[in-house]
Structure formats: structure tokens, C-alpha cells
């Protein structure tokens, strides 16, 4: 589940791809009869449907047509457009495996938090994996996350759209990352919700942050200074959404070799620290 890493950009690509698809497919292929029937029932264009089916032949053959109908019927109640639904299936065919009861529970749980309808829909379209959660998971996880983003619904939706893994990962791990960002890096919710920081590992985050501190490029905030004052620190986006090489050369302004060596040393240091702490067993149990 941790492999879902899509953001708005991917979403845009998908839209463009699907548009091109519909143009290129037109007329070239003969659509099988059962698909054109299904397309009629679902009220979508048959070439687009056949393209989606072709993309995921392996997975889709396990799901009967009834699943398609259920999904379309139920989600159109929530104002999802048929084209959006196809797109969702294209990006994550597993959502066809949800039965009606679970789907219902899940959607009720989502709507329970009075998110903005349109934004919630956008989120689910771009991250269909949101539908794979069961209602208990949603009901326990969302309030916890909300408290970290200052109880702003929109911010949370944005955060999830960048890194949907925060819904699935172990809460302890997510919490340690959020704490690190808020307490050690002294960043506010507005600064991290628009980055994919939560889908990177805590080690990478710590390593890059410590690297910048040692270079003297990341300074802690002066507690007496005006909280709105802009710090000269590089933005989180630059820190986390770059490759190792880009980060070393463009953001930190040193050679890539130095960063690679530092990473090695830092890993060793962390391992040694963990060895020392190993007296107390760590519990990795899920919160739910």
C-alpha cells in the first residue's frame, strides 16, 4: 500500500493521456460486443472503456460486470462523473474489488468530516486508493491528522493528495515524521501540506535536514523574532522533492560526493544510536 505516490502532476498527465487515448483509439479497433454493452450500461464511450480494460487485462478479468455497475451506480450518487470513474479504475483497478457495503461505509465515513464536497471528490479521483480504507481506519486516522494541520479540512485534503500513504502507514511512524517536521524543523502546516514530504522516509528527511544544519544553511528560528518573518532556510519542497545529486549541488551548493559520504556516516551514527537504545523494546503496533 505504501507504493501509492501520485500527486497533482501525475493526475494532469493522466488526463492528458486519457484524452490522447480517446483520439488515437477512435475507429482503429473493433470493440468487443460485451464491452460495448457494458459501455452502454455505464453510459461511457466504448473505445475509452476498452482502452482501460486493455490496460489492466490481468486484474480486471477477476471482477464481474456487476462490480462495475455497482461502483458506477453508487458513486454517481456523489456527483462523480463517469469519465472520472473510468480514470480512477484506470489508475487503480483494485477499487473494483470493493463490495457495495464497504463502499457505502467508506463514503459515509469520508463525508462524515464535512469536507468540501468538490475537493473531496477531486481527492478521491486523484487518489482512488482512499476508497480502499475501511471506515474504522478513516474515522480514527482523520481526526489525528487534522490536529496536526491546525484543524483545517482543506489543508488535510491537500496533504493527502500529495502523500496518500499517510492514511495507510503505521501511525507511530507518521507521527514521528510529523513531530520531526513541526518540532525539529520548526515548520508550520502551511509549509508542509503542499509537499510530498510525508511520502519520503524519516531517514531521508533527517539526513537532509542535518546536512543543511551542519552546512550552516538551515538555522533554527529565533524564538523572539516575529513568527511571520521569512527565514532564509531552503524550502521543504526543495529539500525533499529533489534527487540526491540535485539536492547536494543545487540546494546545498556542495559536491554530490560530500552528500553521499555524509549519508553513509549519518546512517552509521543512527544505527549506533539505535543499538544503544535497544534496551527498551520498541512497539510497532498499529493504533487502530
Amino acid at each position: 500500500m505504501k507504493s501509492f505516490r501520485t500527486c497533482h502532476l501525475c493526475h494532469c498527465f493522466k488526463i492528458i493521456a486519457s484524452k490522447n487515448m480517446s483520439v488515437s483509439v477512435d475507429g482503429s479497433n473493433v470493440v468487443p460486443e460485451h464491452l460495448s454493452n457494458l459501455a452502454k450500461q455505464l453510459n461511457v464511450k466504448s473505445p475509452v472503456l476498452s482502452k482501460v480494460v486493455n490496460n489492466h487485462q490481468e486484474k480486471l478479468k477477476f471482477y464481474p460486470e456487476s462490480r462495475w455497475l455497482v461502483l458506477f451506480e453508487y458513486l454517481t450518487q456523489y456527483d462523480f462523473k463517469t469519465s472520472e470513474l473510468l480514470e480512477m479504475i484506470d489508475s487503480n483497478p483494485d477499487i473494483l474489488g470493493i463490495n457495495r457495503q464497504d463502499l457505502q461505509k467508506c463514503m459515509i465515513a469520508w463525508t462524515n468530516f464535512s469536507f468540501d464536497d468538490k475537493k473531496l471528490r477531486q481527492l478521491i479521483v486523484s487518489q482512488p486508493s482512499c476508497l480502499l480504507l475501511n471506515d474504522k481506519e478513516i474515522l480514527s486516522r482523520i481526526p489525528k491528522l487534522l490536529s496536526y494541520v491546525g484543524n483545517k479540512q482543506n489543508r488535510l485534503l491537500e496533504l493527502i493528495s500529495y502523500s496518500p500513504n499517510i492514511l495507510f502507514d503505521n501511525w507511530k511512524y507518521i507521527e514521528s515524521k510529523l513531530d520531526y517536521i513541526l518540532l525539529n524543523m520548526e515548520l508550520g502546516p502551511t509549509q508542509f501540506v503542499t509537499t510530498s514530504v510525508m511520502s519520503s522516509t524519516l531517514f531521508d528527511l533527517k539526513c537532509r535536514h542535518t546536512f543543511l544544519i551542519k552546512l550552516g544553511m538551515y538555522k533554527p528560528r529565533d524564538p523572539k523574532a516575529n513568527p511571520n518573518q521569512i527565514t532564509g532556510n531552503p524550502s521543504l519542497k526543495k529539500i525533499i522533492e529533489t534527487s540526491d545529486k540535485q539536492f547536494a549541488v543545487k540546494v546545498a551548493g556542495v559536491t554530490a560526493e560530500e552528500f553521499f559520504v555524509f549519508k553513509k556516516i549519518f546512517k552509521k551514527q543512527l544505527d549506533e544510536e539505535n543499538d544503544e537504545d535497544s534496551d527498551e523494546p520498541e512497539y510497532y503496533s498499529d493504533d487502530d
Partner: protein
Amino acid sequence: MFRTNTATLLSHSLRHHNHVLIVHVRTKKTHWSLIKKKIHPKDKALEHFDDFYGSVFGKRWKSLRLALLSPHKYIAVVNNFGDSEKVSQELEWLGAMNIRKVVEANQQKAKELTSENNIQELDKKIKKLLLSDENKSDTKKENVEYVEKASLHESLLEAEHDESRLIDPEANSNIGGLYQFIPATELHGKSEWIPESQHYQYYEENSDFPINILNEESPLNIPSQLQVFTFDRGDFSPFPHPRSGASKVSDYYLMDGGSILPVFALDLKFGDRVLDMCSAPGGKALATLQTLLPESLVCNDIQESRIKKIHNVMSEYISDYQSWGSRLMFTQINARHINEPDVYNKILVDVPCTNDRHSLENNENNMFKPTRAKERLQLPEIQADILKTALMNIAVGGTVVYSTCSLSPIQNDGVVKMALKKIWEETNHQIVVKDLTKQFEPLKSLYSFGKGLKFGQMVMPFLPLNYGPLYLCKLVRVK
């Protein structure tokens, strides 16, 4: 329920670890907010370096800063008074390389390159000769020859008054020239608030006395008995803790990679009489002894506790050093007051300095303690005095190597210049600065050397080659 739980937990942990229960009492001093607020000497040092070195090194400073704040790399000097062959073999198995072999390989490579170049040059010359009959004297070597320069007293005899430099006290212009740097004798009030980057400006250009700088032509010669091991670039494997072998002495001495260079620069020969003026903790002195070359070595330091440190090191590595008699002696004199002219032909001057790496790592014995501000600001004066004493005492033809473990240009080139100036003013000694750039060329794959220094060489901390900082300058007395 809670109580029973804690009770079982307690008994559980007691059974397993035999912990002594320490009940932390929160006092004023141990309160977390106070601890967080406290500014340690380390933090002071970092702040100072950010200000000072930031202005000296510019963009390069952050890379240096990173290296200084990361763990540094060691080199291992194999103990020849133990089972040296076996130890060298073991170190090689660990993947360490012998510095001598690296140097020899690099020298060989350089030789091959130059011989190729020579052939090409010869070809060009022949072509030229064939093309034009005139035999132009282009090929004259541009080697700087040593020209004897007169000392202050001699030059004063021939000197004329320089009228242009007289300052008319009536005129208000140019009055700034009168306020030349005068070292402070006392510090009052806001002494710590003087950013040292401003202090540094005083030491810039005013070269009005002759300094001879000659290239060191001889190739780097590492004494044949000295076995020094290190790991490759970017390889941070640690050396295991040195064990003591059958002869009850430790296998090898671990020290910062830079610290071996002053010993190389001394260019030790058989029968040398060596003085180590500020010897503690004795690493460089031990490395000097490991060459098995010097006839005598005198280790000097100012405090008894520091002398004890040298004794400790020596006893750990040489079992019978106390019966060596005049071969290894210890003295406890202020290095500025040593007066034994023409006794030694090699003097190592590893002066007390801000010790940059140590100052950033440890709060103990830290130069940046507020109480030591005065001592710290006086350092350049003391260093120059010690170097001057060394230059006064060195025998003709002898070598003085000045070294610090600071990045500060004041404590490095600045001090060398001050000492040379004093020597020029007060004595008839002719001192030549040897430029080791060429000699250290074969070490370039092992160290990151600084550029743009006037007199000496500097090992810059650089994360993949995290040695130093170490500055060294070789001075030779010619008359």
C-alpha cells in the same frame, strides 16, 4: 491496576539490569528550559567561526563547516617498538593503505608524465631550431634563485630618509595611517563583542621587509621506517582499538591525518637533533621517534600535567624509553624562554592555537570559554613569540616547521610573517620560507590542500578526506 503494573515493571527491570534507581530532582540548574538556553563554549566557537571564517573563506566555508562538525578520519602510525611487521600486515588486511606506497605510486606516475612532456618539449625545440637558425635564449629557466637580503641593521646603514612618508601632523588627511595595529594589553567591557573578522583586517598587507620564498625542489621523502596507514577517500571504516602485543606495547598510534605532515616536512635525516617545543600530547614526537632517525629528541611543554601526558603516550608505545638517556629527554620550560642557540637542527613548533575541531566538539578545555577570551585574543602574539624563539635557536642550515590546527589566517600566515619581521628587525639570521606545494603534490590524492596561502600549506577539512585543519610552514635558516 496501575500500581500493580508499575510494581511488576519495576521488579522486572531490576531483575534484568540491576539498575540503581536514580530519582531526578528538578533543580533550577537542571531544568530543561535552562539547559536549552545555555550557551556552551562549543556554540560560541561555532558562532565565532561562522562570522570570521565566513568572511575569510566565503562560499567554501560551509563545506569546511560540514567537515568540521562531522567525525574526523584517523591515520595509524605503526609502532616500530612493537611487532611492526605483523601489525602492518593486519592493517593492510583491513583495507588500509600505506601512505608511503601511495606517495611512491604518485611520484612514479608524475615522473612518467614529465618524461613524456620532456620528449614533446624536445621535439618542439628541435623543430624551432630547424625552422630558425637563431638560437634564442627563450629556454632560460625561470627558477627563482636565492638572493641574500640584508637584515634590518645592515639595510639601515644604507638607508635614506623617505621624505614622502613623513606625515604632516597639521594636515588632517592621512591621519588614519597613524593608527596602526597595536596589540591590546588589557581588555575591558565588551571585548567579546568585537567580531574577529574585523580584527583580521589589521593583519593584512604591509609587507615592507624582504621575505625569501623558495620552492622546495627535493621530492617528498617519507622515512623508510615510518609506516603510516589510512583508509581511502570517502571510506570511514574505523581502526580497531590498538591492542598491546606480546611486548606489552600498543600496536599503533591513532591521530588526525594532518598531524603527520609536519613530521614529513621536517625531512628527518639520520643523526638529527630534534626539539619539539610544544609537545603534548606527544603524537608528533612519537611519530618522529618512529622514524628511528633522530640522534636526540627533546620534548618540551609548559605545564607538568602536559608533560605527564607525553610520558603516558611514550610509556604506552616504548617499553624502555626511560633508559634512553639523551636520546629522549623531557623539559618543562615556557617555549618563549628557550635559549639554546645552535643546538638543534630540526625544531617542530606546534603552537597552542584555537584548535578549531576540538573547540567545536568539546566543551572541556575549550578556548572559547568566556574566561579564556583574553588568552584567545593573545594567541597570535604568543605564537609569533614561540616561532621567533625557534628561529633564534635553530642551527644554520636547520629546519623549523611551524604548525597549527586552526584555519585562521592570522594564526597561520600572519604569525609566520610577524615572526619573520621580528627576526629581521632583531637579528642577523637569514631565514628562507620553503614553499612545499610541489613537494606535497604526491599527497594530493590523500589530502585536500588549501589554495592561496602565502607561505605554508594547509590541510582543509573536506568530508570525504576529513583531516585537519592543519597549517604548516617550513622555514630554513641559511645564515
